[in-house]
């Protein structure tokens, strides 16, 4: 049982619930950023190995026995870029919200019916 993975899934569920039920556009974006954090926690938790240390080779982790002492560095590298992308996407979404507000003077998603069928 992986505690951090469970926490990540719970955060994804809360964020998804916020995105599906909230009316306020800002709240929907906050839900998205909660999902983001949850997914990052899940990915990092997959690479963790109990009792091991960070993937940096120095005096305490020699090159020879690195394979037995470090955690998996690949999920860390993936999440590193994903966090930066997450910020850029969030900022882009907020810009769209600002533009929508400028046009219709409302933050409620109920007032944007153009794409509804």
């Amino acid at each position, binding site marked *: 049982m992986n505690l951090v*993975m469970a926490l990540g899934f719970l955060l994804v569920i809360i964020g998804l619930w916020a995105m599906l039920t909230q009316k306020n556009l800002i709240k929907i974006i906050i839900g998205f950023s909660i999902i983001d954090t949850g997914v990052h926690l899940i990915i990092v938790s997959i*690479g963790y190995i109990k009792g091991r240390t960070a993937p940096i080779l120095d005096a305490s982790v020699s090159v020879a026995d690195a394979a037995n002492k470090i955690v998996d560095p*690949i999920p860390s590298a993936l999440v590193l870029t994903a966090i930066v992308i997450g910020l*850029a996407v969030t900022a882009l979404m907020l810009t769209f919200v600002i533009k929508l507000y400028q046009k219709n003077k409302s933050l409620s998603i109920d007032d944007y019916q153009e794409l509804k069928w």
Partner: protein
Amino acid sequence: MIKQVLSLVAIVLLAALIFAPMLINTPLHTSLTPLANYYATQGADDLGAPNLVTAIVVTYRGLDTLGEVTVLFIATAGIGFLMGKKKKLITPKRPASELLQNGASFLLPIIILFGVYIFMHGHLTPGGGFQGGVVIASGILFMMLINQDWSHNVFLFLESFSGFFYVTIGALGIVLAGGFLDNRILPLGTFGTIFSAGAIPLIYSLIGLKVGTELVGILHAMRGEE
């Protein structure tokens, strides 16, 4: 009301059919995967970088990082396009307090120095281009808070400069070493010193400048228009 019930059903289905089986069936690892094992045993000899995460981000998966920087650039361009050109800077209702002004002008050089330190030592210690770039962007945010008017053209120039040299160094790798974004175009040096690991410090510094200036661009565009 019906919408909330439908959302609840969708989330419960998702949790029961995908999340719960993943949670139960994903084993707790006790050893490295073969790929991670290769990086751990051969990474130091191949690239000479003690921080394996940096080695993966900059060289092994360098193309990913190039794509990531491109996505960041496109997002910044989109934000700048949507927010439009500023006719004039917003004049605040009252000027920033003296405490904030003095504090910001005292802290700004230290913050920028710290950011440069983080991305220069990206191959030795935790941190690197992304973290250092963000630290620099927060330093510039201080300047925005006290309404110092900075010419944005400096950042635009730095952004194109670092992006251009990032790709140029990557292409040099094809000619001089094993492939695109290979760091062995410079000598690997002594393991664990600052001038080592080939081109990794250089590439990560350029990534740091690029990320920092792009984030400054996002903040600049979102700061408000009139």
